[in-house]
Each structure stands twice: as C-alpha cells, then as structure tokens.
C-alpha cells in the first residue's frame, strides 16, 4: 500500500444523525402519502381515480424546479464567493442529478395521467414543452460535469453552465408559452380561480410536497457527501500513482 494513502481514521459513510432523522421523517411522510393518496382521499368527480397520480406528479414537479433552482444558486455561490468552495459545486451537481431524476418522474407520471384525462400521452402545450426542454438541458449539464479535468475546472465550467441556464429558461418559457398554451394555469389556492379542492385532496397534496421535499434534502446530503468522497478518492488515487512511479524510478536508478 502506498505511503501517501491516509489510513481511514473514522468509519466511512455518508450518514450522520441528522440525515438519519431526515430519512426516517421522509419514510414516515411517504407512508402517510401512500395512506392518504391511495386510501383516505376521495376520487375526483371528473378525473376519477386518476387524480391520485397527481399526488406524486405535483410534488415531483415542484422538487425538480426546486432542485434546479438550488443548482443555479450554488453555481453562483461557487463563482462569486472568494473561497470558491468545492462544497457548493458538489451541492450544485448533486441537486442537478436529483432534479433530473425527479423531472423524469414528472414527465412519466404526467404522461400516465394525460392518457386517461386528455386522451393522449403528450400535448405540445407550454408547460410540458418547457419541462421537456429543461430535462434535456440538465442532462446536458450532467454530461458537462463528467467531462474531466481538475475538480476546480469541473466546478467552474459547470457553474458557468448552471448560470447560463438562468438566461435560457425564461427565454424558452417565454417562446414556448407564446407558441402554445393549452395547459391550465396553476389554479389551486389562487383567489377567484373557482377551483376548490376537497380538504382531504389538498391535504394529500400537501403531505406529498413535504414528503418529497424531505426525500430531496436526504438525497442531496448523501449525494453531495458521496461526491466529496469521490473527489477524495480521485486525489488519493493520483497521489498513490505518483508515489508508485517515483518508487519505480528510485528502484531503477543506481
């Protein structure tokens, strides 16, 4: 074993007491969501049982947007703070990964809901199209993160890209909205919208949002710590390789 590899001084892992508490809370809330979404809440007058898909669809959509917002924020914090802390970069990366997964779930659940409700899986309306474009944008962001180079090179490159998305998203949204708009606007809770959800339905939706937000925080903490460990592994691996080459030279030289 190379001398430069530090011996593990503590138990390796990404869990702490706080993440365990958040994890347990997330599981409990997801259990609640199952109970309310599938059991206690009534079927909708128009959408019948399919309304239950929305208890997953709406929270995942909210989370994906939250995750991309966090990516942009952490990108800005990395670029514009003096320390250029890699911690912000890992949060940005972890958040984008989670956002992409949740946005994929949003698209899939949306399609599953759209087929029985609208009669087709996909409609070219503003919100769907923007969501699909956002999904592809962040898949591209993750591809750029994997390009290689030093940690700070990766961080700077992806931070710039994360911020460019802030220019891009409003333009995409504006153009697509202007092009097509069929999707009903967000209607729950808007005064005068005339849409009143059954109390239990609203509560189920609320439980869903809390459950998925907790899940997001839990995933974010674990994933960013795992990314930090990957970075350490890269560094240690490099040091070990350098030391091995050096030892070879020492062995050969008279």
């Amino acid at each position, binding site marked *: 074993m190379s001398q430069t590899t530090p011996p593990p001084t503590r138990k390796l892992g990404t869990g702490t007491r706080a993440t365990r508490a958040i994890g347990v809370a997330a599981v409990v809330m997801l259990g609640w969501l199952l109970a309310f979404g599938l059991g206690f809440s009534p079927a909708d007058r128009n959408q019948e049982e399919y309304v239950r898909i929305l208890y997953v669809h709406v929270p995942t959509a909210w989370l994906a947007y939250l995750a991309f917002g966090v990516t942009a924020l952490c990108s800005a914090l990395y670029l514009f703070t003096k320390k250029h802390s890699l911690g912000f970069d890992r949060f940005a990366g972890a958040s984008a990964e989670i956002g992409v997964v949740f946005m994929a779930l949003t698209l899939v659940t949306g399609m599953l809901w759209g087929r029985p409700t609208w009669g087709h899986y996909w409609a070219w309306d503003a919100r769907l199209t923007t969501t699909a474009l956002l999904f592809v944008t962040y898949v591209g962001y993750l591809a750029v993160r994997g390009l290689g180079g030093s940690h700070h090179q990766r961080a700077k490159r992806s931070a710039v890209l994360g911020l460019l998305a802030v*220019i891009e998203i409003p333009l995409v949204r504006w153009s697509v909205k202007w092009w097509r708009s069929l999707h009903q606007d967000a209607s729950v809770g808007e005064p005068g919208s005339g849409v009143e959800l059954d109390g239990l339905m609203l509560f189920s939706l609320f439980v869903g949002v809390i459950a998925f937000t907790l899940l997001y925080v839990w995933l974010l903490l674990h994933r960013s710590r795992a990314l930090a460990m990957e970075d350490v592994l890269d560094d240690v691996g490099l040091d070990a390789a350098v030391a091995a080459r050096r030892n070879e030279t020492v062995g050969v030289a008279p």
Partner: protein
Amino acid sequence: MSRFQVARLVAVKDLRVERRSKVVTNQILPFAGATMVMFAFALDSKGVSGVDEDGQRWTTDVLALVAPGLVWLATLFSLLILVGRAFAVESEDGALDALRVAGVDPAAIFWGKSAALAVQLFLLELVLVVAAVLLYNVDVPLGGVALLGVTLVAATFGLAFVGTLYGGLAAGFTGRESLLPLLVLPVVAPVLIGATRAVESALGTGGVALAEGWPWVGLLAVFAIAFGVGGALAFGPLIEEAT
C-alpha cells in the same frame, strides 16, 4: 488595441481559414441542400386536399406549408457542423490556448468567432431560402422581404452566439461531436420557434398576417442580446478549462 479591433481580427482570421479550406462551400452547403431534398422525400410533396365546412374543396402543398420550419431545421443541423469545425480548427494546434496565453480578451475572441460564424450562417440561410423557393414552391411576397431579412439577421446572431459559447465549452474534449447537439439544441429552441413563426408571417404561409411576425423578431432580438452579453461574460471562464 480595442476589444472591437481584436474581435474584427479574429473574425477576419476565421473567415480567411474557411475561405481557404473551402469546407463551407464544398461540404456544408451541399449537406444543407441534401437535407432540403431529404425533407421533400420524407414529407410527400403531392399535397393534401379536403373539403371545408362550406363544401369548398381545398388543396394545400405540405412542403410549402412547412417550408419555414424546414429552412430553420436545415440551418440548425448545419450550425452544429459549422461550430464543430470552427473549434476543431482552434483546438487541433492549440490555437485557442495560444490566443488565451497571448492575453487576448476572451470577450473579443467570443465576438470575433461569433461574427465569423454569423457571416457563414447568413450566407447558408440565403441559399436555403432560395432552395425553398425553387424546391418547395414557396413565394416570397414583396411586402415580406423586410421582415424576412430582419428575421434572418436576428436569428443568425442568436444562433452564432449560442454556437460559439457551447462550441468553446466542448472544444478539446473527447465526445464533443455528440455533446454539442445535446447542449445547443434545447438552448436554441426559442430561435427555432421564433424564426419559424416570423418567416411564416413574412411568406404569408397558411394565411398568417405580416404584422404577426414582428413580435417574434423582438423575441429573436432579446435572445441574441442576452446570449451576446452573457456569452461574452461566460466565455473566458469556459475556455480556460478547455485544456
């Protein structure tokens, strides 16, 4: 030397490289032309007919109806190839690094390369519009020429800025050929939408009024300005990472 002069030198250098290599005229233009012919094979050019509510028979030439979108799609595909080339030339001999090490202002490099790309794209678009007129039976009404011209210019700059920005990011990395479309296509979606609608208005495709096109030009202009400024700020940090 001012930033503008440096940008001009970079643009002239890029255009000279392209003129001497003749890749645009010998490969990219024929590719764009072939794409237009392929579109015609994919979308039957015989036309669609039917009977409307009043019992009147109507016939529509599908190709003429979708021609504005096809022109922009062919432009986008060609853009990806042009951008790939613009940066292959730079990264092959470490020319971009040389520029950077020589202390050339990254914003000037960005604007210079964008301008050279814009000139090539604009010429390509003109050829594609002519191809649409010849192959797809598209008429260009005299009243729509101004809107068509302004749309071409505004869309071209937007595409050139985005192409240069992401081309610079992907330059020098393995797999850049496949990464570039993934990065560029979602970003230029507003240009594709806006430019297609504006050209539809300019040509009167499907009875769209001329006045409906100008707001779309506004969108294209905002897009070009946003990426012209944002790109100039971002280009420095991005190309620093290219090696």
